[in-house]
């Protein structure tokens, strides 16, 4: 059974009603459960009823994360290869309609950026592009990965959804992880945010993790753009998606990211504003629901928030990120995809992590392990 078939059996409205109907009793049942939590428990933990119990959730989240991941924090950094894009997305700086300077890095530029990133200490890298399949397609990506493979132990990508055989090519080139965010699981309103381009096809995007899973990819990252729609309902569907994938692609590791809607060129206001407290609640809810899933936080979030949240469930963070192609050396002043809030350098972040009693981990992969 495909995920779409399962997804179609749920209603956004009904799910919303169920979440908002959860009570304090439901929440306490979930927090105090000794065995595995289920999706009903997750609904309770992300409901408004859970807010008064956040401290208890945080204590448990901290304990579960420490047990599973130890006192460590994985360091990674994004490298934007291209900002070309054929989609219109109402919230993104790279949207087709935005008049910005478009840049796709050449081989020489890729290597220059790699050197700059290596000098920051990184060994795990995330390659990011817009969605321009004709010019920045699998051949370009495969070439970029091969160029970078000698420099980085672990290469992840966040690019346009591809076909399985294209993902296989990228695995052979050296990719171990693919991040693909559904942005929102609200099918009805999805097209309002993605009116044009291949991304406007909701079902195709939804099936992407399955197309990745069949290749035996080592890790898949999921997420939604928090604020596009009601983050509670969107997160339920993310958890549903995660559950489906874990069962069907059991050899794959999973991670969840928490991009929160930020100002960008041509920006929109979030439909539902998500507070820091609510983001903390969501992170803790995921940890209680799935003690093994990796939870990742980017530099979109503030210093203050990141300093504290690292003890509450997060297992990987980026630092010193540039969200424009060439941002590290080649084209430092070009337009970023979104604004960074925590602009501390990697070594400052590493110091913060050590001071908090955690070890910043730069390398946790071996190239031959694919």
């Amino acid at each position, binding site marked *: 059974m495909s995920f779409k078939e399962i997804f179609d059996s749920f209603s956004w409205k009904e799910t919303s009603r169920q979440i908002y109907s959860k009570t304090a009793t439901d929440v306490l049942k979930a927090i105090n459960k000794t065995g595995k939590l289920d999706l009903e428990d997750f609904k309770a933990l992300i409901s408004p009823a859970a807010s008064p119990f956040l401290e208890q959730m945080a204590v448990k989240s901290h304990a579960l994360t420490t047990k599973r*991941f130890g006192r*460590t924090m994985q360091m990674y950094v994004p490298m934007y290869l291209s900002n070309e894009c054929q989609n219109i997305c109402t919230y993104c700086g790279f949207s087709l309609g935005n008049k910005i300077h478009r840049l796709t890095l050449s081989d020489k530029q890729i290597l220059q950026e790699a050197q700059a990133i290596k000098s920051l200490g990184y060994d795990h890298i995330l390659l990011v592009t817009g969605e321009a399949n004709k010019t920045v397609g699998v051949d370009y990506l495969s070439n970029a990965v091969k160029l970078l493979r000698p420099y980085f132990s672990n290469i992840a990508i966040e690019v346009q959804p591809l076909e399985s055989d294209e993902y296989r090519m990228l695995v052979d080139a050296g990719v171990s992880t693919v991040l693909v965010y559904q942005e929102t699981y609200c099918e009805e309103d999805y097209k309002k945010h993605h009116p044009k381009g291949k991304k406007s096809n909701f079902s195709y995007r939804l099936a992407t993790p399955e197309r990745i899973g069949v290749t035996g990819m080592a890790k898949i990252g999921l997420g939604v753009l928090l604020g596009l729609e009601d983050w509670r309902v969107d997160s339920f569907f993310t958890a549903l998606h995660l559950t489906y994938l874990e069962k069907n692609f059991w050899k*794959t590791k999973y991670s969840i990211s928490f991009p929160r809607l930020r100002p960008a060129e041509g920006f929109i206001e979030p439909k539902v504003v998500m507070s820091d407290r609510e983001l903390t609640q969501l992170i803790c809810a995921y940890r209680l629901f799935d003690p093994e899933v990796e939870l990742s936080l980017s530099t979109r979030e503030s210093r203050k928030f990141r300093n504290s949240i690292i003890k509450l469930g997060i297992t990987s963070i980026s630092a010193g990120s540039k969200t424009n192609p060439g941002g590290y050396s080649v084209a430092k002043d070009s337009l970023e995809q979104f604004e960074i809030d925590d602009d501390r350098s990697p070594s400052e972040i590493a110091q913060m992590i050590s001071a908090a009693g955690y070890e910043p981990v730069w390398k946790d*992969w071996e190239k*031959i392990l694919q």
Partner: protein
Amino acid sequence: MKAEELIIAGRPFRSRLFTGTGKFSSVEMMEKAILSTESELVTVALKRVESKLSSDKLLKSLTYPHIHLLPNTSGARTAKEAILAAELSREAFETNWLKLEIHPDPKYLLPDSEETIEAAKELSKRGFIILPYINADPVACKKLEEAGCAAVMPLGSPIGSNNGLQTKAMLEIIISQSSVPVIVDAGIGVPSHASEAMEMGASAVLVNTAIAVASDPVKMAHAFKLAVEAGRLAYESGPGSKNVFAEASSPFTAFLDEVEN
């Protein structure tokens, strides 16, 4: 019960507590804790160390004459990957010793018995001294022994779960049937779990998470050292059998003394 020295592949070990290096808050903390255990066999994940081993901070911190490093293939999901990792380890660490660890399931990190046995057979031919991490499966353990492994390392419960000896019944069978040392690895959460394993007759135990995530890892490390010693001494002392029921004051067979001439 005579005190036996622990010998694996011809190498004697004074300590029956083996340790891992993952999950610690810092390299410094890891070093202090491992020294506190007095452990002489310490596992290191190949995927965590820098390719230039001489500059790797973690390895430098464990350079002591009594510590023997055991590279592990954690991250390998198949026999093929494990064999590649093994060859890389041998070259990098300059040792034939290897902890063979193959877990395709990244959620529970349970070992793939089939792939482990296949890899062990090949690595044995290539001259490795193999300590394989395996399910508490008596048949798999005998197969690994036959494949030439220097010991077997059955799990007590899933890695990092701290749930103790959930597989006790199987461990007892493995210990009774094994001709090679049995090292209980994974799931040991508190020192009493380690004592329990030693009292059962395990040759050694491997502990990582329970020490690394304790509030005071150095103290917990010391506690584990004592627990392993206590458990082993208890085993060697030949404890009395546990009675399921109280001994009757008039045993059932007393009548035979009366009727026999």
